């Protein structure tokens, strides 16, 4: 799936973003360090995501991309540093509290409950965030937007195809737009045509006012959507700025881009 950068589009986005960045940031990550047991993965990562913008978080295998997203959503505690989301210091808060502040995180790999049905997966999210009465309407809306899910609503989510599982994850988000959506390797293992569809949905979600933090190894699609980029290298930020100024840097830092090895996990 080699996809070059489309210069004209990138420049356009970059200009767009500079306007947005004058707003106060929605998410601010400040010298965050984190480790898995004795193995340290992040060495002082700082960046910020402006309200309404889309940030691409890029890096090669093992650079710490997934770790950053896990720390932000509260799945892993930061050993030092701070995370500020929507004006509130969320460092050390449990994941469910952060989620209730309006942060949605679709983790890498399967991000739906395999042992629940499609319907139950949606109900789980809708019932908590919309209340019991609104669930019916939200379900109807989700199924009209994703007819495939409607057809398979009583099927276990674990039996869906990879693409359908991503759609289910996005359907949850679409009904209740969060302030920030973190998507981790959403295109991983998908056929290009399905990946395109996933990114179209992401664009739609963004146009409803949700900021995006896109964790990707496949640079092309992520950069098309994003207006700013954070490049991670060995657990540290090596570049943060608008896509337009990224230039050749991405190719230098991301040796695996577009290569078959890009399908591996990065923890």
């Amino acid at each position, binding site marked *: 799936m080699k996809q070059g950068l489309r210069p004209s589009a990138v420049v356009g986005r970059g200009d767009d973003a500079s306007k947005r960045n004058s707003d106060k940031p929605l998410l601010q990550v400040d010298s965050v360090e984190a480790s*898995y047991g004795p193995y340290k993965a992040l060495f002082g990562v700082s960046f910020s995501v402006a309200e309404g913008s889309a940030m691409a978080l890029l890096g090669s295998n093992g650079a710490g991309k997934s770790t950053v997203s896990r720390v932000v959503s509260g799945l892993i505690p930061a050993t030092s540093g701070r995370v500020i989301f929507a004006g509130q210091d969320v460092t050390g808060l449990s994941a469910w509290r952060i*989620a209730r502040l309006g942060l949605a995180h679709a*983790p890498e790999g399967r991000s739906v409950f395999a042992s*629940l049905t499609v319907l139950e997966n949606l109900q789980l999210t809708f019932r908590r965030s919309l209340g019991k009465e609104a669930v019916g309407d939200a379900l109807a809306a989700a199924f009209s937007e994703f007819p495939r899910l409607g057809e398979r609503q009583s099927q276990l989510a674990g039996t869906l195809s990879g693409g359908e599982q991503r759609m289910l994850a996005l359907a949850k988000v679409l009904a209740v737009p969060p302030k920030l959506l973190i998507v981790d390797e959403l295109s991983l293992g998908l056929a290009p045509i399905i990946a395109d569809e996933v990114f179209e949905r992401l664009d739609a979600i963004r146009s409803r006012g949700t900021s995006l933090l896109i964790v990707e190894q496949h640079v092309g699609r992520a950069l098309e959507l994003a207006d700013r980029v954070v490049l991670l290298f060995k657990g540290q930020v090596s570049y943060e700025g608008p896509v337009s100024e990224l230039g050749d840097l991405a190719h230098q830092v991301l040796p695996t881009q577009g290569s078959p090895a890009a399908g591996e996990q990065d923890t």
Partner: protein
Amino acid sequence: MSTFITYLIPGIPVGCVYALMAVGLVLTYKTSGVFNLAFGAQAYVSALVFYLSVESLGWPIWAGALVAILLVGPLVGVALDRMLFRHIRAAPSIVKLVVALALLIGIPTTMKLLFGNATRLNPPSIVANASQVYHFGAYYVSKGEIVTVAVTVVVVALLGALFRYSELGLHMRAVVESPRMLELAGVNADRVGTFAWGLSSFLAGLAGVLLAPLFSRVSSLDFTTLLVSAIAAAALGSLTSLPLTLLGGLLLGIGQAVLTGYLPLNSVLATGLRPAFPFVVLVLLLLALPGLRGSMEVIDPLSGCDPPPPPLAASVRDPRLDRVARIGFPVFVAAFVLSAMTWVPSFWVFILTQGIAFSIIFLSITVLTGMGGQISLCQASFAGFGAFAAGQLAMHLGLSVILGALVGAVAAAVLGALVALPALRLGGIALALATLAFALLADNVLFPLGWLGNGTTGVSVPRPVIGSISFAGTRAFFLLALVVLAACSAVVIMMRRGMTGRYLAAIRGSELAASTVGINVARAKVMVFALSAGLAGIGGVVYASTQGSVSPTDFNYFFSLVFVVLVVTTGVKTVEGAINAGMAYVILQQLLSYIPNHPAWLHRFSGIEILLFALGALGYVIHPEGMVEFQKRFWTERIARMLDRRGGHQPSEGSGLGGHGEALLEGKAPDGWRPSEGGGLGLRGGAAGLDGTQG
């Protein structure tokens, strides 16, 4: 037909009792992924509290029931969740099973410690005039039975509704698969988990108080045996379906009652098959129901958030410490043997020999669980099988005990393979349950047979004689046992270093991946199971020969449970873990037997070693590699750092944590992650470990 119904009717309330326990099991499993073998022990706690408050404190029945069911029951569950299960929510189901095992043996001991060991006869019933009988045509039903049936049906219906229609039920089902993903949906997974535990524990309490009057006394053993029947019922519901579980319980209770009615009294079938009926059903169900095997584990997609397991101490050891160990270990062994042969009182040499026998049995767990990644709850049965075989051969054919040991080992290995062949298709929890059923089958059916275990009389096993050398003396036999242990350890170490060990490590990592590189997973599993059973058989013979005789009570199912917990406590991955466990087991037991009988409260401490081991296994929650293994790594790293500071030179590659971190980022596995080559090192390190347990 009417006789059939006469037999059938008393089976219904018993079946309801099974169902009530089974529903509790299913609830716990559905909501926490824990196959809660301690459920019976929890029921026992409530039954005991109810008995004590009514009989000893003289409370009214309703007050005692209220406290036991609504207060003590849920509190126990919430405490277990907060202290233990919350921390292993994302752990593999085997880890959870071990913790539940530890509770199963730890809770009754704790109760004994708290409330003494008096026999408590005739538990009161929660129902007034429970024995009042109602007539329906020609049939009789007592009031107590009606209440039991009614409560069971109501409970199952309410739980079914909770799961199907409520938001909480949805959360409870989701939390098993991935607590972290549930948190991402904005739900407090901890609270859901605590509620689920409180609820299932309430059920345990209810079952305990309702069931107690069925037995003549309040005893934890009755509840544990009852639990196996409940497991069979739960298996029929594939551990998920509540209505099927209820049906399973009923069928089991009725089947047992009808069987009792029709089988002639005192026949082998009646005395053997009737108590074993639930276990036979369980084994058949495990083999026949495909749903039980496939759907048992859904992997948490967010398990990557957990840190990787720490490396074995032996693999991070500084080369300088290695040199010390290389000299220190032979010195230690020589000193140990020399002391045992000279100044150590012969009684203690006898105790140490017992320790060696247990060490050999425990090696079988090292092989099966540490290397094979499987859990068997019938290792004691294999040990008993080996011992009985050797004893019977010596008695009837005059076969030498040494030869008998070999035959016994082979017989146990064949039996192991026979158990493993069907169990192969199971693995994980299903395998543990199948082996538990086999252990109970052995206890109830095989061992009482005259030509095998010879019932309560047992079998005498002489000390061996080789040529003109007799090993009848305590010290001589000690030496022989030590040689056997060394040989068994060598086999285990060689196996771990060789291809089989690598195969097993691969299978442990991923059966699928292992089979794609051409490893015959089924063969490797049968082999490891057979070898493990054989080792247990040899250990059993050594133990029997130490004692001079052996009876089925020496190796009943309870020992199998204790053994697993013990070895897990000390470290299931290394040979020295097994040896530590063996020595600690006999030495602690002996030391604690010196506790005087009075004052009476002091006597309660006599069985406390079980509790200590249970507590150790609970440490599994924090250090899955085993307490001893954890200490060892802690100290080797610490000493290495100390040496570095003193010597003033750079830490050697891979010994410091920083080194691992860097290596990880470079994308290559740090040293400690390589499959351990530390088999031999494990034994060498035994010097320090043994010292620790004896000192």
